[in-house]
């Protein structure tokens, strides 16, 4: 195993965060110093801040608690893997809860001013010219959360220890922004704020070899593909009088496909478990059956995740595209 070369290192004190350039092929390690500290995390494409990590996409693909072997995705229409989660010694990260904010501490606890992840992020991001409106939903490292029966969500105390860490391998050039979560009156960090250590390494060949291949798809669009690629620079919204709608594939014309069925087929159709949804419409019922079958036959990854293999060519072979 090759030794990693340290590029830079910081210890983030309670109430602070740091915007850090992490280039493609570098590893960002976020490490417990005393243990028991939640870290909120934002990330942007270093060369285009409009591309940023999207918790919604990430949780859809990897679930509420992404850990080793998952990716951090950017928002549509980019939908690129920004980081690969190379190591996670605890396995309790969260993409369910939003960042804490000044409003939460004022409305719930009566604080006129209190450390909070939104404002810490905004202050750290200001170093790169971003504004408080640019802070996005947090990837919450070392945050123990779960969903209760019935849908309520819960934060629990955590048990991370000194030296526990998460390692993120950048797949594109990024501005990564970790911050020490400001919640000292909640369970998130066991009711006390502690420092965290942040290190940037050059990835070793062994690190790079661990990243599964992902297909590059035409639907992963960048500003060169946008009808309007200009970033709006004022705050007022005004209608564009020259706007002409241009929605993809519209109008969606419908064609009827005639299918000859024998009596046994028809009996199958009538007794299909979802037939009552279609109120006796055999065509709609058969359509449901077809797409249900197709999904089972050809979709290899759930929830819109790309097929991850060591060979993108094989993935394309599996699913008609």
């Amino acid at each position, binding site marked *: 195993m090759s030794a990693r070369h340290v590029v830079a290192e910081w210890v983030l004190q309670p109430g602070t965060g740091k915007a850090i350039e992490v280039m493609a092929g570098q590893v960002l390690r976020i490490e417990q110093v005393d243990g028991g500290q939640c870290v909120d995390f934002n990330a942007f494409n270093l060369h285009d801040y409009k591309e940023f990590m999207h918790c919604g996409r990430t949780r859809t693909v990897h679930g509420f608690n992404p850990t080793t072997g998952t990716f951090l995705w950017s928002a549509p229409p980019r939908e690129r893997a920004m980081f690969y989660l190379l190591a996670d010694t605890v396995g309790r990260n969260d993409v369910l809860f939003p960042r804490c904010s000044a409003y939460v501490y004022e409305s719930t606890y009566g604080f006129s001013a209190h450390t909070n992840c939104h404002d810490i992020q905004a202050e750290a991001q200001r170093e790169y010219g971003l504004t408080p409106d640019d802070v996005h939903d947090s990837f919450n490292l070392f945050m123990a959360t779960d969903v209760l029966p019935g849908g309520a969500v819960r934060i629990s105390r955590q048990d991370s220890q000194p030296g526990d860490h998460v390692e993120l391998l950048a797949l594109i050039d990024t501005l990564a922004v970790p911050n020490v979560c400001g919640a000292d009156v909640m369970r998130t960090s066991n009711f006390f704020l502690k420092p965290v250590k942040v290190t940037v390494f050059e990835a070793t060949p062994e690190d790079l070899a661990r990243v599964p291949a992902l297909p590059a798809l035409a639907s992963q669009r960048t500003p060169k593909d946008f009808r309007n690629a200009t970033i709006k620079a004022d705050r007022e919204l005004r209608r564009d009088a020259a706007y002409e709608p241009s929605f993809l594939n519209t109008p969606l014309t419908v064609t009827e496909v005639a299918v000859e069925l024998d009596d046994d087929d028809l009996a199958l159709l009538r007794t299909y478990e979802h037939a009552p949804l279609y109120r006796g419409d055999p065509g709609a019922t058969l359509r449901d*059956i077809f797409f249900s079958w*197709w999904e089972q036959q050809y979709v290899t990854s759930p929830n819109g995740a790309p097929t991850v293999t060591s060979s993108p060519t094989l993935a394309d072979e599996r699913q*008609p595209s």
Partner: protein
Amino acid sequence: MKNLVHVPLNRQQLELLDRTVARGAAPDRAALLRLALRAWAPAHRTATAPKEPAR
């Protein structure tokens, strides 16, 4: 006895059918829909539906 069922599909759905036919799953759209019916529906019948004996 033959029964004719009309399946309404938009052009995106038809594209997926056609790609699947082009890959050799069935000779045409109608045959593909029948294939799906026979492969999928027997295991997904209503709880109250009488199960036919295995042939």
